[in-house]
């Protein structure tokens, strides 16, 4: 694997950290380098520590590591927060003219650049971060011209003057470092390639997948970290005849989405944390009325308000069991950013084929992390849309009873009933959260009750048989140790394999994107001496269901600090866990 560079900019929220990081990430991507970004942010608008981190390599990068090579520090706290990751060879870019006196460990390279003065020289103090980007280019040997396109993309809307000033700011930063420092000993020479990459995060991939899948209606209520799905769709979904509505609360959002779905639109809502609790009221109605709906939960640290801007995979039990009574559902959890795209499309197909709620479960780390991909990763020609048993004016006749009434909940062999949407002649029918007969009319008849419960259960059984509930596999297929993971941990886990291999530790990794239904791992567990389930929660919710499935005790690696797994750290955790006894 080629050497990678870990760069970060940190300061206070409101300092433009995010946009500066994004400009550099896009420039690296345009230079044909792979990029993986991560963000530290607090739940406040201004102030509080914020950082944007970039890991870049000519090889694919799938995770973050515990190392920082170049840090642009706008505050002392930025240095303090990252001391663990800084090392002897790290360079720290800071502005010595500013009011704070930087305390930088001796062994590191302090690069004092008058960011503000140079920015003013270029046309305004606001461009000091861009001066720092120029300085970073000088240190790494990265051609400052790659920044130009990113700057145009970012500031083009504000006029060519602004763009030119920013380009000048970057050059001033670069030149200052060249003139005042001899940094060849840092030894960076960022290789570029002819590859064309796109750079996007998990929430953008979900939004893009929704549009590709023909989603036309989105109702939501702003909540971190799900909101950016709504923001992505706003202004784009309209191009395809769709609409985004900001509801008054999550109860309204999910019911609006339900209404649009019953009207025949592919429809979605997304939320997180407390929002998913509020939506739980309607889960049963969606299942009972057999409405196709995609509900996305971008998980964050709970319970209650928990840590709204921090990572956790704590909602698996909610997705599996949320709602009173027994609610047939699907739970799909993408494991990578590209899967956020493809699993969203699959979620819409599953929802319509089986007329049931589909929970698309993502997490904060995936939602704010950007990664580079070849554009073909999102091959739109490969998108397939399956609307299931949607009847029209011609086919509705097969499903009418002897009195000409539409059998919306016909107890078919596969459990899937025909679906008619408003405007379909003779398809009018009533849907309800009450137990109902084939016509949708309320009943408490014991036989009909059993018939309808069995019917709804049967469609999940049908789906279990018909669909491929697969997992992805990495590492050594013959290894004695088996690691199982779900959600965004996959990247760190796959990179951890490199570290483990270097120490002759051989493991097999299964990354499972389907929580319910899910692949049967009994055989895989039986073949392994050791099974370790890796997840970002304290109790091991996925480990619990896998133990239940396979009747095998597993070891667990749980991280619930609010920070995602890092590849090198995870390798250490795995080594330690392999030495432990299997729990009784």
């Amino acid at each position: 694997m080629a050497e990678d560079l870990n760069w970060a900019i940190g300061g206070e929220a409101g300092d433009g950290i995010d946009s500066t990081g994004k400009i550099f990430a896009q420039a690296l991507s345009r230079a044909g380098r792979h990029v993986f970004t991560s963000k530290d942010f607090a739940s406040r608008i201004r102030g509080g520590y914020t950082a944007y981190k970039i890991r870049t390599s000519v090889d694919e990068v799938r995770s973050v590591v515990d190392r920082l090579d170049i840090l642009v520090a706008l505050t002392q706290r930025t240095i303090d927060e990252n001391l663990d990751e800084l090392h002897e060879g790290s360079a720290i870019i800071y502005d010595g003219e500013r009011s704070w006196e930087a305390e930088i460990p001796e062994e590191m390279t302090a690069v004092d650049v008058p960011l503000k003065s140079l920015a003013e020289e270029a046309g305004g103090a606001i461009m000091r971060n861009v001066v720092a980007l120029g300085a970073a280019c000088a240190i790494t040997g990265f051609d400052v011209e790659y920044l130009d396109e990113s700057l145009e993309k970012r500031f083009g809307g504000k006029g060519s003057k602004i763009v030119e000033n920013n380009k000048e700011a970057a050059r001033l930063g670069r030149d200052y470092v060249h003139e005042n420092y001899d940094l060849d000993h840092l030894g960076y020479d960022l290789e570029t390639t002819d590859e064309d990459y796109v750079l996007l995060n998990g929430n953008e991939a979900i939004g893009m997948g929704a549009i590709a899948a023909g989603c036309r209606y989105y109702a939501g209520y702003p909540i971190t970290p799900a909101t950016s799905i709504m923001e992505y769709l706003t202004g784009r979904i309209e191009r395809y005849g769709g609409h985004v509505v900001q509801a008054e609360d999550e109860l309204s959002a999910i019911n609006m989405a339900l209404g649009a779905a019953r009207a025949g639109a592919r429809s979605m809502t997304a939320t997180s944390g407390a929002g998913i609790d509020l939506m739980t009221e309607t889960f049963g109605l969606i299942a009972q009325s057999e409405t196709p709906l995609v509900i996305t939960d971008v998980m964050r640290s709970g319970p209650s308000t928990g840590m709204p801007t921090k990572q956790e995979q704590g909602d698996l039990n909610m997705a599996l069991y949320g709602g009173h009574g027994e609610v047939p559902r699907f739970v799909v959890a993408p494991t990578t950013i590209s899967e956020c795209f493809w699993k969203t499309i699959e979620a819409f197909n599953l929802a319509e084929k089986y007329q049931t709620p589909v929970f698309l479960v993502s997490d904060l780390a995936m939602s704010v992390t950007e990664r580079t991909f070849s554009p073909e990763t999102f091959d739109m020609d490969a998108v397939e849309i399956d609307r299931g048993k949607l009847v029209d004016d011609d086919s509705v006749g097969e499903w009418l009873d002897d009195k000409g009434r539409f059998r919306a909940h016909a107890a078919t062999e596969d459990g899937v009933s025909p679906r008619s949407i408003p405007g379909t002649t003779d398809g009018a029918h009533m849907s309800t959260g009450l137990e109902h007969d084939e016509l949708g009319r309320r009943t408490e008849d014991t036989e009909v009750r059993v018939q309808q419960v069995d019917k709804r259960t049967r469609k999940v059984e049908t789906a279990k048989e018909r669909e491929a509930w697969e997992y992805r596999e990495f590492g050594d297929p013959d290894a004695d140790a088996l690691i199982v993971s779900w959600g965004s941990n996959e990247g760190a886990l796959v990179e951890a394999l490199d570290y483990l291999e270097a120490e002759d530790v051989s493991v097999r990794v299964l990354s499972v994107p389907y929580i319910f239904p899910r692949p049967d791992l009994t055989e895989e567990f039986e073949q392994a001496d050791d099974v370790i389930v890796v997840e970002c929660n304290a109790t091991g919710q996925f480990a619990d269901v896998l133990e239940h499935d396979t009747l095998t005790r597993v070891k667990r690696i749980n991280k619930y600090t609010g920070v995602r797994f890092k590849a090198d750290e995870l390798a250490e955790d795995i080594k330690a866990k392999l030495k432990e006894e299997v729990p009784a």
Partner: protein
Amino acid sequence: MSSEVRFTDFKSDKQPTWCPGCGDFGTMNGMMKALAETGNDPDNTFIVAGIGCSGKIGTYMHSYALHGVHGRALPVGTGVKMARPDIEVMVAGGDGDGYSIGAGHFVHAVRRNVDMTYVVMDNRIYGLTKGQASPTSRSDFETSTTPEGTKQPPVNPHALALAAGATFIAQSFSSDALRHQEIIQQAIEHDGFGFVNVYSPCVTFNDVDTYDYFRDTLVDLEDEGHDPSDYEAAKEIILDADKEYQGVIYQDENSVPYGEQHGLTEDMSDIPEGAPEDAMDLVREFY
């Protein structure tokens, strides 16, 4: 079928389980007649209802319908209408459904001004749970949960609606069949959110707000020569707590419904068989 629709086409073959004499019979009949009279047919109509006696209405009518969860009927209707501008949407609920658990949705539905009709079957009592106070119950009305009255003023739904920027506010009485039907018809024909509070007496649990009471006290705003476009006059009527009235209280003739404001004209149920033709543009944005 639209040319020869009769109101009975909106009737299902399910026998209502409402108590004999319940005001909801008249409320529903008026809704069915108004729908037929305004040229709608069951296959192009969507009725949404919440929970309670009023929530049963979708079962007794014939059309596309959803009987949802308590208090959330308006968001469902909103979703249906936004996705399908071609479909007639009518939302029905009770005073508890609309002004208690659903009060938050009510004011937002009003200000969103989606082109649908909202009929509240107001009997000033919780009937299906056997006689508790509702948000429109009088402050001295004694019920199983308020033996000494609620000691709170009743909700004034029309005031809520007016404050939220309503473009159509009306009230009718289920027993005055012709006027009730006319008022619902006007609400359907209104471009925007047509809100009608219907006095729909509960003969089992409410012995105060009875048919006789409304017959004796009801003032018809039309007879009074009230001009619904007169906002100030509407405000005065609405804030007069001592008066029971029927008719169109307020109508904004310049109402621009949500769909028009947001350019929602397309049938959202119609999607291509694969990704949109220019979908790769969505990917290229991330270069």
